[in-house]
């Protein structure tokens, strides 16, 4: 017997058994971690779609997610380590680390805050405290920029001293704004339309007809006719579900937060009417994690609703802009990474947990009661320049009085600023604006008189989207604005498809150069627009393309 050829560095085959270890391969779950997770999950369901909720429990309790607890959570939820790990690392609000201290301060990185000196604020805070600080994408308070968040306590028009004071006092809980509670809402006639619908005094067809006649278009950004969407879902066979998109992540947009924090029941009634009309068995409200005050209000108010309607689940996002895309939101509600799905099938056919699903934006539902009660003519009675209806503009930037401005559709930017915002901020002159947040493109002052509505801005390479208007003046570097927006998209790309994953990264790198390589940027933009799976990648080049089109002098093209 002899070996034909000696194999170098090979252990003797018998070595295997001696080397065998007495525990299974991979990370072992420690008893301490197991008990910690068991305590957090005590009395809670453990099905898969609650994974993000449970990760929040760990994040909230520990200020971060230690890897041993992650392993214990995987075991407790009977999921593979990899599944839990990939979800935890996908969302920005989960801080998977064993060593870093918890993030205590967040400073908004978004365009409106940037214009109001967020960089200086962050630098001053960092110089004054050792607490860990993180720059984060838009927290949805652009009218109150710059914004810092201590724990879950949002500090508007923040100064370093305010932040230090909050840290010293341990003021980390959200401050709840005054809102109309259940009893007051009912006193003012609330929930009567829902009751009439449920009692049969008002037919579903009448509701649908009212929406159709009002020509109500979705307020989430795409502007799909609401009545048509409801009818389509209503006609689907089998169990139907409803999901509410409260993941208002578009930089500059804060109207949904405004409505949730002021009159939550108007939204809830609209939602329940929708569920009743389409026959949805359960409702999932997906609320972005940046809105702790709205979450606290909703939690309290939902508990007051009588238990006779469909089951309502309130789900927390975890810091992912892409989850505002409806199919990515459904993935997230199912407890997975927020990767947009391929369409077809559309979510009204195969949606949440495989069921036909009605997905509506918060504000869309907020208007349902008024349209039904006041009639479609009331809604259509608003409007300018042959457009009809109302639009809730989230106005920020260089205006005297930023905020949520309810204005007629078709209003021009100049009218919006002058009539609703008290004019341009003192000392500034209008130079340009974002009509629809980060993805809607940048328009110049020369286009301040065009109607702001769906279908009117597309000819200028732009769209109104969620009506997040950010106003720029001569004080603002538009190149820096475009770069800020591209960096936002880079941060928020889910990484699923090649054009967006690499395109946002490369575009940001190219735009960081002193001289922009225009032919290359344009070609790169074309690939992202044509080949990306979802709207994030398709719209990401809009700021840079509109900048080139409307401000050639700025970019040296």
């Amino acid at each position, binding site marked *: 017997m002899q*070996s034909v050829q000696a194999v170098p560095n090979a252990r003797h085959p018998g070595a295997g058994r001696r080397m065998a270890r007495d525990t*299974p391969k991979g*990370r072992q779950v420690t008893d301490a971690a197991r008990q910690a997770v068991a305590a957090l999950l005590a009395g809670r369901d453990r099905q898969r779609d609650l994974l993000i909720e449970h990760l929040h429990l760990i994040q909230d309790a520990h200020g971060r997610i230690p890897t041993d607890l992650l392993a214990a959570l995987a075991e407790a939820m009977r999921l593979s380590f*990899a599944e839990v*790990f990939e979800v935890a*690392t996908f969302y920005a609000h989960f801080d998977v680390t064993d060593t870093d201290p918890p993030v205590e301060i967040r400073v908004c990185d978004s365009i409106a805050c940037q214009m109001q000196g967020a960089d200086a604020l962050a630098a001053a805070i960092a110089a004054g405290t050792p607490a860990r600080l993180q720059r984060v994408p838009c927290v949805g308070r652009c009218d109150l920029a710059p914004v810092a968040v201590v724990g879950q306590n949002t500090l508007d028009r923040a100064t370093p001293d305010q932040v230090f004071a909050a840290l010293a006092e341990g003021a980390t809980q959200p401050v709840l704004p005054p809102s109309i509670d259940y009893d007051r809402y009912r006193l003012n006639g609330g929930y009567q339309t829902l009751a009439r619908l449920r009692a049969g005094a008002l037919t579903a067809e009448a509701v649908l007809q009212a929406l159709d006649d009002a020509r109500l278009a979705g307020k989430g950004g795409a502007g799909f006719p609401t009545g048509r969407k409801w009818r389509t879902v209503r006609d689907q066979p089998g169990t139907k579900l409803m999901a509410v998109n409260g993941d208002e992540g578009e930089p500059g947009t804060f109207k949904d937060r405004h409505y949730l924090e002021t009159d939550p029941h108007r939204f809830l009634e609209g939602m329940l009417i929708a569920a009743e009309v389409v026959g949805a068995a359960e409702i999932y409200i997906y609320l972005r994690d940046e809105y702790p005050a709205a979450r606290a209000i909703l939690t309290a108010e939902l508990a007051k609703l009588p238990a006779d309607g469909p089951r309502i689940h309130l789900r927390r996002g975890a810091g992912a802009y892409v989850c505002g895309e409806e199919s990515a939101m459904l993935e997230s509600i199912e407890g997975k990474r927020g990767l947009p799905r*391929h369409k077809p099938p559309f979510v009204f056919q195969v949606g949440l947990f495989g069921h036909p699903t009605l997905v509506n934006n918060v504000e869309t539902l907020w208007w349902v009661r008024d349209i039904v009660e006041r009639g479609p003519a009331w809604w259509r009675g608003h409007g300018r320049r042959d457009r009809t209806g109302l639009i809730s503009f989230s106005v920020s930037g260089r205006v005297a009085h930023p905020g949520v401005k309810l204005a007629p559709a078709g209003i021009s930017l100049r009218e919006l600023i002058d009539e609703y915002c008290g004019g341009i901020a003192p000392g500034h002159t209008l130079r340009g604006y974002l009509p629809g947040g980060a993805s809607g493109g940048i328009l110049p002052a020369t286009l301040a008189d065009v109607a702001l509505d769906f279908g009117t801005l597309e000819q200028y390479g732009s769209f109104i989207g969620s009506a997040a208007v950010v106003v720029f003046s001569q004080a603002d570097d538009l190149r820096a604005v475009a770069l800020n927006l591209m960096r936002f998209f880079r941060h928020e790309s889910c990484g699923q498809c090649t054009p967006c994953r*690499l395109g946002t990264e*490369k575009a940001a790198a190219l735009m960081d150069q002193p001289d922009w390589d225009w032919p290359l940027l344009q070609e790169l933009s074309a690939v992202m627009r044509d*080949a990306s799976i979802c709207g994030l990648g398709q719209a990401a080049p809009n700021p840079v393309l509109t900048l080139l089109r409307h401000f050639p002098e700025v970019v040296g093209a």
Partner: protein
Amino acid sequence: MVKVTVDGIDVDVPAGSNVLQACEAAGKEVPRFCYHERLSVAGNCRMCLVEIEKAPPKPFASCAYPVNDGMVVHTDTPMVRKARRSVMEFLLINHPLDCPICDQGGECDLQDQAVGYGGDQSRYLEPKRAVKDKNLGPLVKTVMTRCIQCTRCIRFSTEIAGVPELGATARGESMEVGTYVEKALSSELSGNLIDICPVGALTSKPYAFVARPWELKKTDSVDVLDAVGANIRVDSRGTEVLRVLPRLNEDVNEEWLADKSRFAVDGLRRRRLDTPWVRQNGKLVKADWQQAFDAIAAKAAGLAGDRIGAVAGDLADAESMLALKDLLASLGSANLDCRQDGAALDTSRRDFYSFNTSIAGIEEADAILLIGTNPRHEAPLINARIRKAILAGGVHVGAIGAKADLTYKPQWLGEGPDAIAALLAGTHPFADILKAAKKPMLILGQGALRREDGAAILAACWKLAAETGMLSADWHGFNVLHTAAARVGALDLGFASGKTLAQMLGGGVDLLWLLGADEFDTAKIGPNTFVVYQGHHGDAGAARADVILPGAAYTEKDATYVNTEGRVQRGQLAIYPPGEAREDWKIIRAFSGMIGKTLPYDTLAALRARLEQVNPVFTRVDMLPRFGCTDLTGPAGNPAAMRGDAFVPAVVNYYMTDAISRASPTMAECTAAAAPLAVAAE
């Protein structure tokens, strides 16, 4: 069927197909990285872009777009070409240009498609992204910087292998593929990750930097390290087998291969018998063929036929077993056995010992009962089929035996024969599931048959099959899952007659001829029994031998094997046996000539003609007709004689089951890395 026009070619494709499939049906090549026929659609690489008429004027990812009737598709327009070239440029932004030191070079999808669809230079000058490599265990090497995030590996491990251990962490540009922490993959199918990776991110660790694909001689063959008979391609250079890859066979292994079959080939270079040996004064000394034959002839001379016996090992081919059987017959002996483990197999009917449903037939079944078997270890590819059937939906799976993680969760009915008795008596609710099923099947493992009451269990299982509607004119749901590649062929040849192995041991015969038989306790051979070991590895049998005849391993001979289904397949010689070793049937033929009992075949063709004469099933190479079962008469054995003790798995260490895998350093590493698999809780 819907009609689709692709580049002016009309094709009919099933409704529900995607555009990419329609393009393939029209013979149009569509480049792709993430799309894989056997995995779910991810649609993330965006390489398979096409243009669709009457749709928005933009390119569509054809893999994720369903066909409509009358759809008109263009795969080669300026828009499509430009979009693909741009996507390719994007992919190469971060992909390192390390093709010269990449093992995927020469068989790389990215390389090929960059040539076909890419530009000749990149305009992106920024530094490339670097990603830390992951440790996936001894089989799969990672160079994660090469990863293009197609997620095929994640989908494979989750969907096919059933071990959801790979995931994509973080998001956007930071997205990485990895296990949760440094963790070897606990799958017996992990080698397939190497095949499905379209770039060089996942390559073979044992094969790292060994050869370039264009240097290799490729030989189509059949795997023998379990009884599935996976179709393989043996890649060799000079006198060495360097690697083994799966070959497509939808009916057997699809396009997968189990890890042992793929990675145990380095065992072919170690502990080989390359010259005859003869024991003199208690010690084995090197000899030449003449001396070895003389020693055997001297012992055989004058022995009564009944004092001679032969045992065929688990890797033996049909040709050599037939030659040995004929040789023993010429010596007056019919003492033949192939059941080294003592499995109570009934040879009176072929369907008593084969996997009658067929491997592909598993996908038709709607109820599956596993008895005394852990298919994940005994036949990973069959286990993958069972998992595939379960994922397709509507299949009830029950299992009797030691609880184990099978990558799916069967209903555990019991640990031993009591559960069979309960099913027979109808007292267990799973009996109703079996009776209600349209195509129920059971899989009986060797763990249930290699016991003293094996015959009783075999009979009881047949009875169960007959009584629960598993046997009908067009469906045969009774299956025996073998672990040895030689077994069904040996039984087909009648290599189980006269004295059994147990009767030959302890002095039951004076001359015992072991044809590669290593899997029984050789210490039980009588001290005065003269042992001839014919085989290729210096393993248990050779250590006890008085004469060693060096034979050929499965990569070194043209040989016929019959898999557990009864499918006759042929392996081919890829390299020549080392040293003095020879193809096994030729050794036996030469010996027969020397002792004057010349066997009547000089060529492989003549031997195969004899094979067909002995059993006509050998005429059906690569074909497996499926039979129903109308004769419900069961095997001999009394179902009531079953005892109570629990079934013991037939395969303890998946990575070492035979002389080749025991000699393999890679399999030793896998054994070291493996650990008790967690019991799947119910």
